[in-house]
């Protein structure tokens, strides 16, 4: 076993021998070995050397045999492929991005302007009492009166179709009621460009009119905001919400429902009791023999009649709560709620629109780049790992080929 000093000394002697320098006498055999081994160096055939020189001088031209099947990418191919892939990605993402809260194409720009604050006409529903001035169209849509029903629990003909069963577990008919009354309400917040506030307000009112509903209250500040309280038939609540969602960008939308069957039954029972008492009083009045008896019964009849009238009003109101749904609409002005120009938009495409569009394009581009990076990162990582594995595999196969000799 050679010591490190011996190893270094003998390696140095080899270097000296190969370089033609003298070596220590005790290492003369090593120097001779080095020269002998070097003399065994194979020398290329002159014809081969000449041929290789020629090929090297020509830049190692590829043979026709290799050139034919080899597919060479043009230099522009890679950048072109990259651009094409990017464009494809943009198109895919642009077509797959939802149009934002279901805003439809009618969220068009308008001339805007007008008064600073405009109170839209209100309609009188007869139930809320919120409105005072009449609305020409809303008044036509006044809520249909609820037919009186002595039983109270039977289905009134004017209430409309049976409302859906209330949510929640359990059997809704467990309390023995064959008909349930559900009060439904919704709130929706819509954003439109400031110039579209007035137009959006008109659309909201039109939704209520078209669906057989009415506007309970409304207030619009031109170019700023608006608030509406609509009442629409319960069976058209979803249609109304859908159409309202198309007015602008929906920022918030909530729905609520409450079972008011108990309230209906309670009022109906009160009405029934009062009617029963009135019939009893009428019979007593027929059998009364003295003036005092007659006066007492008549006084009692007046009270009961008042109770019957009150119960009828209460029953009508509580049933209307189920047959008509309340929609609270809040209209907000938002400059970012860019909308496509409407057909009748005469203001055209302004520099402000261009600025906003440019910003939007930059946002989308940044998003696309982020998505592309998110896609490319794992794919690139996998490709890198595969490449490293293949390289390592090739290295191992080469080394095995040397060992197998």
């Amino acid at each position: 076993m050679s010591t490190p000093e011996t190893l270094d000394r003998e390696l140095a002697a080899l270097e000296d021998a190969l370089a033609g320098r003298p070596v220590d006498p005790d290492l003369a055999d090593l120097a001779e070995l080095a020269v002998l081994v070097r003399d065994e160096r194979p020398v290329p055939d002159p014809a081969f050397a000449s041929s290789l020189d020629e090929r090297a001088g020509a830049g190692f031209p590829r043979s026709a045999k290799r050139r034919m099947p080899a597919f060479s990418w043009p230099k522009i191919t890679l950048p072109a492929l990259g651009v094409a892939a990017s464009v494809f990605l943009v198109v895919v993402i642009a077509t797959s991005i939802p149009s934002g809260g279901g805003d439809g194409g009618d969220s068009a720009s308008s001339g805007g302007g007008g008064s600073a604050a405009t109170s839209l006409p209100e309609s009188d529903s007869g139930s809320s009492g919120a409105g005072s001035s009449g609305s020409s169209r809303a008044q036509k849509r006044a809520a249909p009166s609820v037919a009186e029903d002595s039983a109270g629990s039977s289905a009134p003909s004017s209430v409309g179709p049976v409302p859906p069963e209330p949510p929640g577990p359990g059997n809704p008919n467990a309390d023995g009621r064959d008909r349930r009354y559900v009060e439904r309400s919704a709130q929706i917040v819509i954003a439109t460009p400031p110039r579209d506030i007035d137009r959006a307000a008109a659309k909201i009112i039109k939704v209520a009119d078209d669906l057989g509903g009415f506007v309970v209250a409304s207030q619009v500040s031109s170019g700023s905001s608006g608030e509406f309280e609509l009442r629409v038939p319960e069976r058209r609540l979803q249609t109304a919400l859908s159409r309202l969602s198309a007015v602008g960008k929906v920022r918030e939308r909530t729905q609520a429902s409450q079972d008011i069957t108990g309230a209906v039954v309670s009022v109906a029972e009160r009405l029934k009791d009062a009617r029963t008492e009135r019939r009893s009083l009428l019979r007593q009045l027929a059998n009364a023999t003295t003036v005092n008896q007659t006066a007492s019964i008549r006084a009692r009849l007046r009270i009961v009649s008042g109770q019957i009238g009150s119960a009828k009003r209460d029953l009508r109101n509580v049933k209307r709560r189920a047959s008509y749904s309340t929609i609270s609409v809040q209209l907000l002005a938002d400059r970012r709620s860019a909308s496509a120009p409407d057909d009748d938009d005469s203001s055209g495409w302004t520099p402000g629109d261009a600025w906003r569009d440019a910003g939007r394009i930059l946002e989308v581009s940044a998003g696309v780049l982020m998505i592309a990076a998110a896609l490319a990162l794992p794919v690139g990582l996998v490709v890198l790992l595969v490449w490293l594995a293949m390289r390592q595999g090739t290295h191992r196969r080469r080394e095995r080929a040397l060992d197998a000799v």
Partner: protein
Amino acid sequence: MDAPVPRSTDVTSTLTLPLSAARSRQGLDFDALYRAARDDVYAYVATLLGDRSAAEDVTASAFERAYRKQRTYKAARGSERAWLFGIARNAALDELRRRKRSAALTTEPEADLAAPEDAADLAMRRAVVRSALADLPPRERELIALKFHAGLDNAELAAVLGVSVSNAGTLLHRAVTKLRKALDEHA
């Protein structure tokens, strides 16, 4: 001690065609590298493969690969010669894999036809060295080829083989010791 024998003897051909297009942007002078290393690469490959015909193909293939990949050369990773011999080594090992040919030195012993009668002893010693070289394991024969036939220094040797310089020296010393022992036994 024998007089030093110059490297690359018996070279009769010279490179006459310009290789201006071969100059790398990174400063790799392929022309100069080719001229300096052509015979060394051939010697290394021929020793490793033990087949002169295959060595010619592999040498040409190695230079062609190096020519195509010259832009990938990074000076920080090692010398030009180490880079070139790394390519040549891969080409030689690919040839071994492809042909599954035994790399036993089947040569073609260099016929010492020109050896005079008084040099019989020297010829005998050369034959012993040649035989011992052929009997070496391929990895040790490769070390000898890189060191004595290709003329690589230990740092280049280490770079080609992917080992440390000290490890390369140790491996080289081990191979030389085997040859030395074979020569001593014959003596």
